[in-house]
């Protein structure tokens, strides 16, 4: 009897821990994805927009490939129930309303994928001005999501 209770408690604790881990994993994975994304967008911004004299075609292609890879990686699967609260690498800034705004969120993701794929194509042509213009469109999709479901500090 006592043993059964201990097992039940232990199982309960294990399940909770596993679930918490899952939520925390999702938050950490998506935060890492955006961090990696930021490294690559910063490169494109620096080389195509701010200092076109430093434009390095190969680096920009590599960065645009990475941006497209992140966009196409199915990021929305990292936004499971309960992931509006969690510590992650740092406290998540996902608004609880995220879960009620699924149509808009999915539309933004589709636009993000479309523009990131286009950026990848444009980068292959190696024209800084073209890259800059398309990079702006990608940035606008980032902003549309931030404005919609990201908590302002």
């Amino acid at each position, binding site marked *: 009897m006592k043993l059964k209770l201990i097992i039940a408690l232990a199982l309960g604790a294990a399940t909770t821990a596993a679930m918490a881990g899952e939520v925390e994993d999702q938050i950490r994975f998506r935060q890492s994805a955006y961090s990696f994304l930021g490294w690559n967008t910063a490169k494109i911004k620096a080389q195509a*927009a701010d200092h076109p004299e430093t434009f390095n075609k190969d680096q920009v292609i590599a960065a645009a490939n990475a941006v497209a890879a992140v966009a196409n990686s199915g990021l929305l699967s990292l936004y499971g129930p309960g992931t509006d609260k969690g510590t992650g690498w740092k406290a998540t800034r996902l608004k609880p309303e995220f879960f009620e705004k699924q149509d808009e969120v999915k539309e933004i993701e589709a636009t993000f994928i479309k523009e990131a794929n286009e950026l990848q194509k444009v980068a292959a042509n190696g024209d800084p001005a073209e890259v800059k213009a398309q*990079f*702006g*469109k990608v*940035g606008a999709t980032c*902003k*549309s999501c931030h404005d919609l479901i990201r908590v*302002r500090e």
Partner: protein
Amino acid sequence: MKVEVHIWDWPLRLFHWLLVIAVVGAYATGKLGGNLTDWHARFGSLILGLLVFRLIWGFIGTTHARFTSFFPTFSRLVEYVKGEWQGVGHNPAGAIAIIALLAVLSVLTVTGLFANDDIAFEGPLFHAIDKELSDKLSGWHIFAVNILLGLVAVHVTAVVLYQRLKKTNLVGAMLTGKKQLPRSLAPSPIKPVGPFRFVITLLIAVTVVWGVWSGGFVEYLAPLASFQSASANPKS
């Protein structure tokens, strides 16, 4: 019996309309994002320069441009509420709106200098502070926009009401600098703008904007940043 009197000097009027253009531009580009963010920074810089100009002009400009001439002191407000206030420049209620507008625009400009959008924008002074503080200031920047919109709505509504109810053309006055005033107030027209004062004020405003972008201020503020990161990681 009314007389037309020159009240607003031309730098003040130029300030006002440039500010209108810059604020509308900054708001629109801020909302749209993308590559227009570059223009958001440019409009913001123009606002910074205009605010510095206005602040100095508020002390050395012509009579009605000076803060002391229209500052809503307690006694002026009491007079105004009783309906006894008499003056030719900004009335005390308008003065509150103007000071509030200048204050919230200052908050927006200063926070914008340190802001980032986690996409592709970093304000010219971003590197002078910690990312965490920049994130916080960026949040305030966005929040302050709501206050600005409220104040602009009050300001524009008041101007429209003056036109409709009191038949006072405030827009015209801000364009021509001239107001129709009762002769009983016996206002004397303002003195001409001193070219030396104007040039000095303009130079200071341009220098501040240039300084912000030159990176000089970042260097000046750098000890602040290292102090912050040192206190954030006491072990390092």
